[in-house]
């Protein structure tokens, strides 16, 4: 595709800190190349803001290659913008044309409080992982490779679930602010592997309990999470989690 430049109007959520109320600010941006990434476009705007002595827009970003899950922006009514299976850093300005207006909001969920502008606090996800998203391994000499047989199909399914980057787009898209796609990906990727099997039941119970404590909603299977997931995590994982959780509860001792 031919490279082109465009002038855009951005409506960006500005909020000084988690305590203060925020509001939208409108910024015109000029001469944006179609080959820039969305974040580079914000960089251009921020440089202008800094030059004018204004506060630049705070936003999360890290790898800028679509694997860290930091760039949490809700763009024109869709987490991570209009492209499928995509992160904001991998969204390129060729998705837009001259004269477009783009509304940029942070993830909205009580469990993801805004730190500043477009940055949200996703440590609730970390605490869910800490509640059981791991396997306990005794240290010692390394075991032989392939000592534990893993069926290829299971390994593939576990790997597909492990592709979750914990970006929180599922929560941002869900009408219930449910973290079930994230949680189910984490539970599935360990439940399908023999290494994850011993702690399978306590993992499901503890992670769900932590998710509820963090203030996420309940899943109603609308499918919005799956549609926006940058890594294409399947909603089937949620069904698996529902099964894991109930079986764990029924089989638990107390």
């Amino acid at each position, binding site marked *: 595709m031919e490279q082109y430049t465009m002038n855009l109007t951005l409506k960006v959520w500005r909020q000084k800190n988690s305590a203060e109320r925020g509001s939208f600010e409108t910024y015109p941006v000029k001469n944006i190349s179609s080959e820039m990434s969305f974040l580079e476009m914000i960089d251009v705007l921020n440089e202008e803001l800094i030059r004018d002595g204004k506060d630049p827009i705070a936003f999360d970003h890290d790898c800028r290659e679509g694997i860290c899950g930091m760039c949490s922006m809700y763009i024109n009514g869709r987490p991570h913008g209009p492209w499928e299976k995509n992160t904001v850093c991998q969204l390129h300005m060729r998705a837009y044309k001259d004269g477009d207006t783009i509304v940029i*909001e942070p993830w909205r969920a009580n469990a993801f409080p805004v730190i500043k502008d477009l940055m949200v606090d996703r440590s609730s996800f970390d605490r869910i992982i800490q509640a059981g998203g791991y396997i306990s391994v005794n240290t010692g000499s390394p075991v032989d490779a392939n000592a534990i047989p893993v069926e290829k199909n299971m390994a593939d399914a576990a790997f597909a679930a492990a592709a979750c980057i914990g970006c929180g787009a599922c929560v941002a898209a869900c009408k219930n602010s449910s973290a079930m796609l994230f949680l189910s990906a984490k539970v599935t990727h360990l439940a399908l592997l023999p290494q994850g099997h011993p702690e399978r039941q306590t993992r499901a119970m503890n992670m*769900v309990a932590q998710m509820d404590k963090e203030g996420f909603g*309940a899943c109603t*299977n609308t499918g*919005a999470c799956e549609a926006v997931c940058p890594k294409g995590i399947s909603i089937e994982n949620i*069904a698996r989690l529902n*099964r894991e*959780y109930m079986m764990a509860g029924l089989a638990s001792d107390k």
Partner: protein
Amino acid sequence: MKWSEQFTSSVGKKWVMALTGLFLIIFLVVHAGINACIWANDGGEMFNKAAHFMGSTVLIRIAEIGLFLGIFLHILQGYMLEIQNRSKRKQGYAVPMGNKGSKWYSRSMALLGTILLMFFILHWWHFWVPARFIGHEELTELEINGVQMHNMYNLMQFTFQELWVVIVYVFACFSLCWHLIHGFQSAFRTVGVSNSKYVSLIQNVGIGYSVIISLAFAMMPVSMYLGWV
């Protein structure tokens, strides 16, 4: 994990919705099956016999208590979930996501359920309350093979002479259809069906079930209003 924890967690509440929902799905088959007897073309004899059997058999009367418990649990839990889920996002989005990724009826289960609840109140008032408690001048008695029974068929024919009643019933059947199209497959997902081959089967069966059941119910008042039976 205690029982109380298990069924009050976010996943547990969904299990309650799914199990009561599946129970109501089975009930609808029975309800539609009994009512379909109006089309037997025998002046309502088969329907009245079937209705009398349902009303006079002890086991079915006990099951009726379970049915009401199931309906009210489904309604209460549904409203609780809706209120709690809505409270999880105090600050909403300026640009709503709309249909980008989910269907309107999947997001509107509480609204569709509320329409159904309002319909049920009317529906109980039309048939269940007269048959069980207060009677109705059009609910005459008749005798079939020496057994005394209500002429429910007559009450149905009387009720469905009013056009607005027929329109309300057909509208409720539309709501039921959309509620079921989401609810059928969602219930199976919630109780843990994740295997791809079952998921696609359930989706297709769910759509078929929802359309057939809703269409069958909708055709009953229409048939009576148009004088087909």
